[in-house]
């Protein structure tokens, strides 16, 4: 990838600040860091406590014994099939990420690189969809999906979200900057445009694909409104809908609710820790370019 993003880790050459100034700076970021981590601490504390410890008279910073049994209790709980919802979210996030990358990257490439007479008109039609936020169109989308009989199905959950004008637009912008010489060399060697794309362009764009995949996976896993609308039956719930149901249950079960929250965040914390580089790069590239 032609790197346009400056490395965020490289500190700017700074003048030598006073010792007091530096101490104040590190004190400020440390206080802010503690506040930012506090909610994560609360999840872990509550997930591994018993309900009497959470709701007790005196605040307890840590449970007397870590209640690892809460995990098996959660998965054996009859009221909400949490395991099922984890599986649904996994299927949804993985298929959505794969589908969006396949469909939107090829479309972005076509719009960026193939000199077709009406390409501009098509591009403006795609741009026009960016004006209408997907969240506002959930009513019409639901009307369509329910007429197709796709309520409570993976199809209904995944397919309407695959055609993201914004992702297509980002891929187009990326491919506009992709060096032409590489493809031309491949074409001279007798590859069709289609195989040149898959054998030359894509392998040389893996950084950008990784960034897009990370962002898409996170937004798929965390999405709530559409899964809520589509998942009428508990068997079709995703993790987020299941979590939401814990909050509205008649009897609140604190330790299970927080164990469920902890497990729902865990995959993203892993994605986050291992793929942070792609994520930061993706945000810096896609967020601001103008």
């Amino acid at each position, binding site marked *: 990838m032609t790197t346009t993003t*400056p490395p*965020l880790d*490289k500190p*700017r*050459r700074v003048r030598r*600040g006073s010792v007091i100034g530096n101490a104040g700076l590190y004190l*400020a*970021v440390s206080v*802010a860091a503690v506040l*930012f981590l506090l*909610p994560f601490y*609360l999840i872990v504390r*509550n997930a591994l406590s018993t309900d009497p410890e959470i709701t007790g008279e005196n605040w307890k910073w840590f449970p007397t014994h870590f209640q690892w049994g809460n995990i098996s209790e959660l998965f054996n709980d009859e009221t909400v099939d949490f395991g099922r919802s984890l599986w649904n979210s996994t299927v949804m996030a993985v298929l959505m990420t794969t589908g969006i990358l396949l469909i939107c990257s*090829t*479309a972005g490439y*076509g719009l960026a690189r*193939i*000199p077709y007479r009406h390409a*501009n008109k098509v591009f403006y039609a795609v*741009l026009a*969809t960016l*004006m*209408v*936020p*997907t969240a*506002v*169109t*959930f*009513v*019409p*989308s639901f*009307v*369509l999906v329910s007429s197709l009989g796709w309520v409570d199905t993976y199809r209904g959950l995944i*397919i309407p979200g695959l055609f993201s*004008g*914004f992702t297509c*637009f980002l891929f187009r*912008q990326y491919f506009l900057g992709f060096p032409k010489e590489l493809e031309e060399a491949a074409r001279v060697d007798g590859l069709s*445009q*289609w195989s040149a794309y898959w054998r030359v362009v894509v392998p040389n764009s893996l950084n950008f694909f990784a960034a897009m995949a990370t*962002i898409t996976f996170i*937004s798929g896993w965390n*999405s*709530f409104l559409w899964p809520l609308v589509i998942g009428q039956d508990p068997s079709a719930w995703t993790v987020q809908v299941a*979590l*939401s149901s814990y*909050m*509205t249950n008649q009897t609140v079960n*604190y330790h299970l609710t*927080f164990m469920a*929250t902890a497990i*729902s965040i865990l995959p*993203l914390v892993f994605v*986050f820790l291992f793929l942070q580089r792609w994520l*930061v790069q993706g*945000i*810096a590239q896609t*967020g*601001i370019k*103008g």
Partner: protein
Amino acid sequence: MSTTTTRGTASPAPAKVSGTRPRRGLRASNTLNFWLFTGPFLIGLLIFVFVPIGWSIWLSFFDARFTVTPSNFVGFANYRHMLTNSDFTGSLVTFTVFAAFIVPTTWALSLGLALLVNRLRFMRAFFRSVFFLPTACSYVAAALIWKMAVFNGVRFGLANTVLGWFGIDNVAWISNPSPPWYWLVIVTVRLWLQAGFYMILFLAALQNIPTELYEAASIDGAKSGWQTFRYITLPQLRATSTAVILLLLIAAYQAFDEFYNIITTRATWGQTPLMVLYKTALGANQDYGSGSAGAVILTLLICVITLFQGKIMGFGRGEESK
């Protein structure tokens, strides 16, 4: 962070269509290739974006309760119903108040964090990661933590526990709209979730400010600190700031997840536009006509915001200059 929150910031360059006419055979193969690459996407876009929008506009002129194939044409009655409906107009007020809180606070906090992190020389990556980590959290999970652990109205919530150490009585943060403490809950949860994301944007922009500017300023006798921030850093961040503010505004417009889970649709206060649409179209009445009319109105409003954004940021300047 959904992709919709970052929409509309990159300025599009006009598609490159070569002026010279290619040979006939090549042109035919270009046409074929174009549809090969873009066909699946465009067919999907047609079915799952354009058809629902068209259908919705059509439905908005019909009495469409419990049906999506209505026959009773009612003209603009659904629009009149939505615009005179206090739930719907109230939700626009909720959005305005929410935006007035969340946009400036997120802007200031994320810029502040970026300025701090940018000055760090040790453990810079560590602190950046800590502030960015909440981005991995979903709105639902964060709403759950805020509602059940931090701002729980009973004694054992963290906020009430801390207040209790100072001898202050329990506060019913969410269940009581007067005084409206629920705004504190709603604003802090989104602040926590979003600040790190926008900090990354500011951090990238800060790195792009040429160091020569600061060197020149110090030669001219500007004191580092407030003076350089006010006259160099802030003006250099103008483009990023504008973009961030508009992204925040559009995200606030679409707020649903944390309101739905913290305040719930059963409450009479704090209902956002999307919650009202949700209740209208998918609630007990299943009024798709009014729900569609509401969606059309909200879409028009957001188009106005986006076009206004275009005016400020020069969105599509490439097209206009042709």
